[in-house]
């Protein structure tokens, strides 16, 4: 089971946080601090896995953005790495050439995609098509609403 997923920039700015188990606010802040410190301090070309307390931290850098996923110890590290990759692929497919700014300005969309892909710390749907289809289905509503919005209604 996954415990949390954090996205942060090279400067240590947090872009996205998802906690799959209940954690207190204080603890969250501490974890975020620990994670950014630990991960940003890693040398290039070192192992993508880290020990942190009783958890395994799997991190990967995509351009300026670090994806950092905490899993329980008996989980498969390589698979976790692929989970991160699949999420990036999903974002990429949705935004079309995703970049950090997409995630900054549309973080709620990034959350929606994540919720379709992972739920309660487990992978929900691994088929890229299906995830996208369900996002698009909800977006259909969004599109019409956005159109509605762009009219000078207020």
């Amino acid at each position, binding site marked *: 089971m996954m415990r949390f997923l954090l996205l942060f920039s090279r400067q240590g700015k947090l872009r996205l946080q998802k906690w799959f188990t209940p954690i207190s606010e204080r603890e969250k802040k501490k974890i975020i601090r620990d994670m950014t410190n630990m991960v940003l301090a890693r040398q290039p070309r070192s192992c993508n896995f880290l020990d942190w307390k009783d958890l395994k931290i799997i991190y990967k850098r995509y351009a300026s953005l670090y994806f950092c996923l905490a899993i329980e110890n008996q989980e498969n590290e390589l698979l976790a790495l*692929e989970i991160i990759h699949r999420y990036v692929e999903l974002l990429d497919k949705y935004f*079309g050439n995703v970049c950090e700014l997409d995630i900054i300005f549309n973080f709620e969309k990034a959350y929606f995609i994540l919720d379709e892909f992972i739920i309660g710390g487990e992978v929900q749907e691994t088929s890229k098509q299906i995830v996208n289809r369900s996002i698009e289905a909800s977006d259909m509503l969004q599109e019409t609403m956005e159109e509605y919005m762009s009219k000078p209604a207020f």
Partner: protein
Amino acid sequence: MSYVGEKTLTALPSLLSLDSQPGPAKLSSTSKLGNLIRGITELTSKHEEEKLIQRELESIKEQVSSPNTSMRQMKELMVRAIYCESLGYEASFVYIHAIKLAQQGTALEKRVGYLAVSLFLNESHELLLLLVNTVLKDLQSTNLIEVCMALTVVSQIFPKEMIPAILPLVEEKLNHPKEIIRRKAVLALYKFYLIAPNQVQHIHNKFRKALCDKDPGVMTASLHIYLQMIQENPEGYKDLTGSFVNILKQVVGGKLPIDFNYHSVPAPWLQIHLLRILSFLGKNDLRTSELIYEVLDESLRRAEMNRNITYAILYECVKCIYTIHPKSNLLEKAAKCIGNFVLSPDINLKYLGLKALTYVIQQDPKMALQHQMTIIECLDHPDLIIKRETLELLFRITNAQNVVVIVEKMLEFLQNSPDDYTTIDLVGKVAELAEKYAPDNEWFIETMNTVFSLGGDTMQPDIPNSFLKLLSEGFDSVEEDRKLRLFAVDSYVSLLQGETRKLPQCFLQVISWVLGEYSHLSEDHNRSTVLRLLEKLLDMKQTSSETKCWILMAMTKLCEGTAGVCVAQQVSETYISSMDTVLRQRAQELQHLSQDSELREEVLPRDSGLDPMEIDSSLSFLDEFVSGALAAGAAPYKPPHQRQEELAEAKVLSLEPYGLALPISMSSCSITDRHSPTPLSMSSGLSGDSTDVSHRAGLKLDGVQRVWGRDGYLAKKESVEEAAPVQGLTPVHSPSLQNEGDGSHSQTPTPTPTPEPDREKEQLASSLFFGVSSQSSVCLMGKPDSTFNRRRKAKVQAPGVTEQLSSSVAPVSNAVDNLLCNNLQDSNINSVSAASSKQTCELSPRVPAANGTCNTDCGLPESDRKRSNLSISRDNGLVDADSALSEDQGSRSDLCPSSYLPAELCGLYRSEIAPLCTAHSLELSACHVHQGDDMILIIFISNSSDSQVLQIRLDLKSEQLKVTCVSDSSVENIKSHTVAVYQYSLAVKRPGVDVEVDGTLSFLLPAGTPQTKHFSYKLPLTAFIRPLLISTEEYGTMWLGFSHEVKQNLTLVDDGCEPLTFTLNLLKNRLQLHLVEIIGLEGILACRLLQNQPCLMHCRVHAGALAVWLRSPVPELPDCLVYHCQRVLQEK
């Protein structure tokens, strides 16, 4: 993915100039959120950011509370609030609006509302209750997207107590035509299963349906639940092995739709899930494993592309192969795989290779030899995580020969260990290895010194504890012990003479204890030197007051001679006015002792070190006080779990039908009563075993040697001899390993390929892997090891102490029952036949023989049973103890009740006939008979007078039992010198440790005066216990359904070889339980209380004790049963 970076740069200007880029992403950059984000990036200082956000929050706050804000605006505000929160600024005022948005918004707004809720709140947040209604409504919506949203939020956060409210709706969704809804429903149920397994156990068959769903997505989702359930109880799902194997075959064979492929590997997540499930199913099970071999082989074969994801699958395959029952050709392939991992230049793969090796080495130590050079390289790897994993691996292969090198490596790593967590973990491991394999005293003490100074005060407290225990208990040889202690003393004295400021508190405590205890062994240092050193510690300002107590205690032991007394007085002066009460107390003691040399002699005699000291663990000295308090109306003691249960009952919404609620009544009192002590005079006689050696727990005070557990220690010499013969690197399998592997390991071990690296590494290798393959098994893994080292042995004993202490409640309670019973009955019973008074006298010399004998008998179920066993074995029906007794009482022999036993009950298992009461010429006695599933109570009324007794009426009633009269004719008159027999059938209404029937006998004397007489008959609950014949699977399903549970640690009775089996069989035979199965260190038993109330028992050997866990649908039953188990084991 590097294009992401490039794009970031190129996109920046156009994004900031906000124009019409296509795509779903761009619109919000023009919005207020966009402005906010841009505003923040332009800021230079944290302070400015704070100001900006505060202003932003102010404005959000104003708008959300305005009634004119539309839901659409609310959505936009919500996104901004989420953003602020994610920057670390609190915006709790919007939480309620998030819920409102989820409630009232249209689909799109709702989605943001739900998202905000799931990001803002956690499971225990009270506002979440307000969401329940919304979720309910959305689950019933006809709009699929709304249903999806509701299910999504449910499987992320949902209050546990409210699950029953939505469960039916979620269940219903399992049949939804849309697969996405079914999938989400399964995942929601998975979540429920994790947080409240009892709530969903009735829908297990629906999980099976989900497993067979035609949509692979739904099927995959259901595997989450299965993985969890199978991990908890593999036995219950063996029948599904075939299905899982089939699914895996189809997946591997590429039968799934193409869009489940990930980088052209078919559904890797699904594959790995299945492999994990299969490894749980096949573990220790040859038959199941045989079903799995083929598909594993197939998976290995297919996964041969060089992709990360295929490596992930391979890794899982390897783990599975080594978990299930071994098969040689698969093991070979797996070993090759591991080789590929370990030798891979990819550092991630190398890491996994090491991890796999660590796992595999438990079964196949020679794998370590094959890769020894790689392991050595990894030991010096710049990446700490690789190094750490290598140490983990070495830890597993440590033995008496390589311990010195390995511990050295571990300590080296510790010196620059990055974090506390690693330090705690490694320090514990070093301490374990040192205790297990230390080659000599010097090394042991020095290593432990390093452990204490590196581990500091963060380490597990049991490390110093077990170290001190080890020192104080010693081993077989007195001389060895003395040397070890002496070395410790010397080493500590020299430590204290150096720089002490950096030493952690717990090390100081260890030092002061050892010095206090053993410094007399050293001739080099006299006591006053040691005292001075300790005094120096006291003066240090870093020393905590707890440590100061330890130091003062040590001083108390050392204070002797004029110099010593002088120092002691000086010190006690200083601390006698301390604010810390404990410290003050110690100072007081020290002062007293230093002033009074006679007292000192008495309290701390010079050579008392080896005298065992015993304490009354039953705390019987408190009995008088407690019974006084009880008499004065104090509430009886309730064990913690019962208190909790009652509290929980009181607080939580009861979702169960009312009938199941725990009745707080007489019977619960009778459970609790046994925990309250009893006046000393009574208990001392009755609970004779409380002073028995087996129940003495050693006093955990300084300077006291424990008495138990000495035998069984292995002499040091033996272990050395056994380990010594094997030298060099060539792996030689000892026969026991081959047996273990069941032939799979029997292929000839390949000679170790020894490459030719630099000599240094080779040397290291030879020291590291020395004796690895020679070990018949790796000790750590808990396999029996004949070369168990002496130090380890000492440690293993440790948990016993606590067990002894915890189980020592029983003797007291044992006596309590009798006592209470006696007290209650004293007034009712005037005289009694002498039938069993002899026995009573033996048990309790101070109880007047004429009083309460019957109760004493009934209160002791085991002896009762023993006696009835006896009577059964002695006769085939009729002649029993009574006839023997009747010889003593010649005059009454003609009325011996046993000969009046109804014919149909003869030969059945029955208790001894116990006298109840006498009234004039009438004598009442009773026994209970096990007639199949019925419990028959038989009351005999014998009339020994010469005249007839008229109008006899017998009324029985009981709070705990249902009593029905089964005698066909109601006897009203009893002629002289005859016996009337009454039969009653008993059924338990409410269980108690013992159950009791109260009766009233009324009759007319020949003179015509009416007489009444009260009596009572008590029988142990065990009389109503019968074995419940069920299979392990049935057990599994029943277990989940029962809500009342009790956990307790019991003594493990050791017959020398198989303590668990022996103990469980003992319980089985004595309490009439059904032994369902014993698996490894665990065993399960089942029984039922007549007629049909099951109670399940799960036993596990843990730390030398038997951890039992009972569950039953009947509230009091587990508690009562655990009590009887305790008594059986204690009696043993």
